[in-house]
Every structure is written in structure tokens, then in C-alpha cells.
């Protein structure tokens, strides 16, 4: 039985600061990334011109709800979007523009320098092959190891992710494992080639909350040991808070706020981030009053509002918000930003009175 101890607070200096420049060349440099689909009703752009960087060892959270485009972003980074989807923009991984690589080179990069962990381990694992076979295969793709060495490496990886008796467990099939264990196997496979960047797309959403805690702990320890940068995609702000150094909040295909995790949760700048945090029903919610609510629902990528995509639901919307899309406004000097016309007011601490807006359903 694997045993986990109480979680220890991480030393504050180990992680990279919000500024990628502080840690040298970024592992990932995304510029003007867009994903669009041609539909009978016209082109739809679920990811609209986003840019960000990830420093070595940095943990970035990509947080958003339905229609925010966060999962598509992950797929676009790995160049896993196929026609009728179109990806534009540049993705530099360790200096190389991924768009310039051909199929074979991309295959080497995927799993080698950048690996991905998915939400549903059952669909990512081959049900008719043993776990051991799949991990060994993953190892041998990216490392020139013989069968015996690969197997040993696999066993040590499985031990790293907390699987007891790895050599025996390797002979099992995916369906013989619980959800949490399968996800650990996925993590082991993803980390087998020591990638510089790990993209985890809702890795614990399908797991029980107690299992989620265990798996996130394992992941945290593993990436800390190896200095892997992580992009964690999730809709759960609590998960992001516990795991990430910096958080990027996505809404309607754009990154509307980027901030260090500690600052974001204390003082969000973008009205959506603020409203989202307030509307979460957590253990401190006041049970005697109504929960704060964001009226309306997230917009469909095919029917985006004019100007700022959040304006119909925003308490502070002005006329300019209806007509013009906000550009990123810097917040402080560390690379944090918010895409809101009223950023300056909010940073200055000016108390903005909510504008009584339409109660959209």
C-alpha cells in the first residue's frame, strides 16, 4: 500500500517568478496563437490570438469554463488539431518553431520534449496491451534503450509515481487499475522521456476528490524533482491555486488575466476573474445569503458579443467595452496583465460602482 504523508508547503523560492525573463530562455513561447474552424455557418474561432510564455520549471495554470478555448489551446500547442481546424500563430518550443517541423520531427518532439496528460486515462491507454508494454514502448520511442534497460526504467518510473510492486503491476491491463492509478501511469508515461514541458489537460477532473489530492501531490513532487515546466489546464480554481505559480484565466478564446497565483486570488483585476472567484461555492461561503452570481452564461464561440466578450455579463461595463476589444494592460512589472478597459482604475484601487446592467439569462 502506498502511503502519502501530509502535504508540506513548498519553499517559496524554488519556483520561477511570474517573469519568464528572470529564468532565462523560455521553454515555451506562444505568439498570436489562433484556432479556427470552418463551419456551414461561417468561420468560428474558439481560440483568438493568444500569447504567453512558460519558463523552465514554471507551473502555469490555464483556467476557464466552457467555450473558453483552454483545451483547444493545449491541442494546438501539440499540433494535434487537424482540418477542418486551422491553427495560426507561432509556437516556439525551446527556440524551435513547431510549425516548421515535419511529421517525423514533430513525432519526436511530442513525448520527447513536450508531453501531454489527458483527462480520461482509459481512452488514452490501450486496453489490450499491458501497462508495462505501453510504458516500455513509450520509453523506447524516445530513448535508445534495450528491452531490459527500458523495462527497468519503466519500473523505476512507476515506483516514482507511487505504484507499489511495479514489476508485477506492469503485467496488468489498464482495466485492472483504478482511475487514480491509471492517471499515475499516464503521468509516468508522459514523464518517461523527461520532457521540458508537461501539458496536463484536466488530469484530475474525472477522479474522486480524495484521489485527486493524491495524484496532484504525486505530480507536484515529480515535476519538482525534474524541473519540468507544467501547463495545467483546469476549470477548478482550487486545483489551480494549490498547484500553479501563475494563472492565466481564459474567457471566450482569449487570456483575460494573467497573474501570479497568490495575487490573483487575493486581488483579481479582470471583472470576470473577480466574479468567478466570488461565485465559487467553497467551504467559506455564507450560507445565509444568496451566492454571488455571474448573470447569463459563457458565449458560444460562434456567437461572440461585440467588443469585449465579457461585457454583457460584466458589472462594470462601459460603452467602450461594447464597441472595442480591450488590449492587454500590464499590471505591475512582472508580466501580469489584464484585458480590461478599466484596468488602471482597478489597479489604482478606485472603487468602481457596478453599472446596473441587463440581467441576461
Amino acid at each position: 500500500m502506498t502511503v502519502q504523508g501530509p502535504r508540506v508547503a513548498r519553499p517559496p523560492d524554488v519556483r520561477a517568478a511570474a517573469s519568464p525573463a528572470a529564468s532565462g530562455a523560455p521553454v515555451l513561447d506562444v505568439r498570436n496563437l489562433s484556432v479556427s474552424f470552418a463551419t456551414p455557418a461561417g468561420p468560428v474561432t474558439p481560440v483568438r490570438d493568444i500569447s504567453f510564455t512558460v519558463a523552465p520549471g514554471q507551473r502555469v495554470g490555464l483556467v476557464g469554463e466552457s467555450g473558453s478555448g483552454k483545451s483547444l489551446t493545449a491541442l494546438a500547442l501539440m499540433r494535434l488539431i487537424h482540418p477542418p481546424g486551422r491553427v495560426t500563430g507561432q509556437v516556439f518550443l525551446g527556440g524551435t518553431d513547431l510549425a516548421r517541423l515535419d511529421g517525423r520531427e514533430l513525432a519526436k518532439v511530442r513525448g520527447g520534449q513536450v508531453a501531454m496528460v489527458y483527462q480520461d486515462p482509459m481512452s488514452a491507454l490501450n486496453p489490450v496491451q499491458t501497462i508495462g508494454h505501453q510504458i516500455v514502448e513509450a520509453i523506447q520511442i524516445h530513448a535508445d534503450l534495450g528491452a531490459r534497460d527500458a523495462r527497468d526504467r519503466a519500473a523505476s518510473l512507476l515506483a516514482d509515481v507511487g505504484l507499489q510492486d511495479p514489476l508485477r503491476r506492469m503485467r496488468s491491463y489498464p482495466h485492472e487499475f483504478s482511475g487514480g492509478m491509471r492517471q499515475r501511469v499516464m503521468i509516468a508515461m508522459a514523464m518517461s522521456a523527461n520532457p521540458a514541458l508537461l501539458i496536463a489537460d484536466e488530469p484530475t477532473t474525472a477522479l474522486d476528490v480524495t484521489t485527486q489530492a493524491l495524484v496532484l501531490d504525486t505530480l507536484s513532487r515529480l515535476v519538482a524533482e525534474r524541473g519540468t515546466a507544467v501547463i495545467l489546464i483546469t476549470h477548478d480554481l482550487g486545483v489551480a491555486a494549490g498547484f500553479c505559480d501563475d494563472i492565466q484565466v481564459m474567457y471566450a478564446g482569449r487570456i483575460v488575466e494573467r497573474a501570479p497565483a497568490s495575487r490573483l486570488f487575493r486581488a483579481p483585476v479582470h471583472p470576470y476573474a473577480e466574479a468567478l472567484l466570488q461565485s465559487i461555492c467553497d467551504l467559506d461561503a455564507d450560507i445565509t445569503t444568496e451566492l454571488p452570481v455571474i448573470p447569463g452564461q459563457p458565449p458560444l464561440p460562434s456567437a461572440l458579443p461585440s467588443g469585449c466578450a465579457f461585457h454583457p455579463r460584466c458589472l462594470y461595463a462601459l460603452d467602450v467595452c461594447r464597441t472595442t476589444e480591450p488590449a492587454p494592460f500590464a499590471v505591475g512589472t512582472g508580466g501580469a496583465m489584464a484585458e480590461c478597459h478599466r484596468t488602471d482604475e482597478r489597479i489604482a484601487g478606485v472603487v468602481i460602482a457596478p453599472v446596473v446592467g441587463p440581467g441576461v439569462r
Partner: protein
Amino acid sequence: MISPGAAPAPAGVAPAPSDALVVVENLVKHYRTGRQVVRAVDGVSFTIGRGETFGLVGESGSGKSTVARAILRLHEPTAGRVLFDGVDLGSLGPHELRRQRRLMQIVFQDPFASVNRRKTLSEIIAGPLVFQGERDQPKIQARVARLFDIVGLSQAYAHRHPHEISGGQCQRVGIARALALEPSFVILDEAVSSLDVSVRSQILNLLKQLQRDLGLTYMFVSHDLAIVRYMASNMAVMYAGRIVEVGPRDELFERPQHPYTHALMGAIPVPDPERERAKTKVLTLEAGPALVDRGGCRYVARCPIGRSQEVCATVDPPLAAVGAGHAVACHFPQSAESVVAASAAAAAAAGGAPAAAAAGPPATAGGAPADHAVT
């Protein structure tokens, strides 16, 4: 359940008959798959008072959804009794049961899967009325229109189909449908778990408001302790088909006793990095290879306290009172600190021989509040 302030009594003892709307006695649901029997629900008892919200908390495999469906006889219970307003549901014939269904309804987790995508929203909401034999079209239309209003949906949506609306709106349709027959009892089976975070609060507010306006009694089934805390007045925690802890909400959150309850509370991610990292999370042990069931506590394989205790492995703990209306099924009910200590000791022993620190009966029910990131 046992009303707060009543004298401490073992769980399962019903309050005065006029208070109780739903009484569940020793509910059992077993599934037979080939030669194996899956004991999805294994002897669950509780009482739901009129007008209250009873929270049923558990993770996957706990049996909470099975309890919900067995109560309504959507799946026939293997054993046990369910009394609804004094009526033994198991004794009803098919025709009487269909009539009885007017009074007890359910809202499902996945709003899109629980509606017929070929029907219009109007038709979906009118469904229960039609199924119960209502033929008067104008009457049906009027009721449907009223229901649209009650749940906050615009009448313009009447002729749309489910795929044309959002998840939150579709769940409102589910709620409207559940209310169509004017039930007194509604089960909410993970009703907000599939919704976006920002939409969840809308629906939770709506549910609370409806409860006030229509005098509904709720059973709120969820894995999310925070939401259950917001909605429920009494609650029960389930694990592997059994209730492991039950009692008034405040009591449970301030003085949780069962190691699994501690684990659940500790595991909830808090959207605040400082508190999240400072929080001492009581983790459960990894569920290892299935141990031989020696008739003991279901949680023993994952329990940092019980895994080294012989009694936990061999004797199934009954629900026993530990406070006002508060009962726990555990041989060694714990305060948070002792569970943390036991976890740490277990970690130190690194899965080898039973940790010395965990030997002997640890501290029993304490009055010290849990030091999780709670109120």
C-alpha cells in the same frame, strides 16, 4: 434527520412522525454480476424531515446515487423499507406507485442526457403531466408556461430543443420538469456537478428559492462537501455502500470524527494558494490491491488509523452516537490532529511494518475543531 437540539440518539431513530417525510430503514441494493455480488448499498438508514435539505455525500462507488434511485424505486431495492409520508413505498403496486410518483421527483446530473433531445423544451416539461394522464391541452400549456417562469426561463425558449440551449438552461428545464406535478420531495442527484462554475451558483440560488417558495423537501446528493454545506441542514457521509458519519451540518463540519470524513474535507481544493498550501491535508492511503474481506470496516484498507488495527479489519463498526444527533461508524473516531499524526506516522514507516505511533487505540472523539480550511 435527528433535529438539532434533540437529545443524542443513535442514528436511524426517527423523530416524531409528523416531522419526518422520508424514512429509510436498512436500505440494501445488491447487483449480481455473474458469480459476484456488488454490494452497492449495504444497510443505509436515515430520516428526512419535512421542509429540510438532507445532504448525502460520497465519492464514486459510495452508493449515494444508488440510494437516491432506490428510494424512488427507480431501481428496486434488494431489501429494506422506505416510508414516504407514512406510506411504505415497497408495498405499492405498479399503478399506485405511478400515482405516488407525483409527490417525489428527481433532477439528474447531466442535464442533456436526462432529456429527450428530440422533444422541444415545452414537450419535455409537459412530459410528466402527460404521463400522469392529463389530457386537457390548455391546462398543460398554462402549467408549462408557469413552470418556465418559476425556473427563470424565457417563454421564447418553448419551442427550442435541448441542443440549442446551454447546460445551465437545460438544468432549469430539468428542474421545471421535476416540479411539474407539484411534488413535495425532490432528489437532486449531483444536479450542479456538470455545470460550469459560474452557472452553479445561479442554480443553487434557484433551488434554495424554490424550496422557500414551494415548501419543498430536498435530498441533495453530491461529492462536493462545500456545496452540501451550503445547501443542507443535515447530512450523511457514505463510503462503499454504508453511512460512515451522519448528523447536523454544523456539527459535522466542526467536529468530524470519521477518518474518511477528515480525508474528504482535507482533499477539497481551496481557491486560495496560501490557505491551500498551509492546509494540512489528511490524505487517505492509496487503495492497494484488494484485500481479503474479513468482515471488517469497509474503509480499513485506506484508513491511516485502522489499517494496523485488528478490530477494524474483522469487526464492522456500527453507527454509534458521538454528539447531539451526530453518529459515526468507527471503532476509533478521531479529531483532525490525531488523524494527521497517524498519516504522518504511516508515511514515516513508508508502508513497511505497522507504524509504532499508530499502535494502540488512538484518541477518541475530541472537542477540538478540525484544523482544515473550514469556517
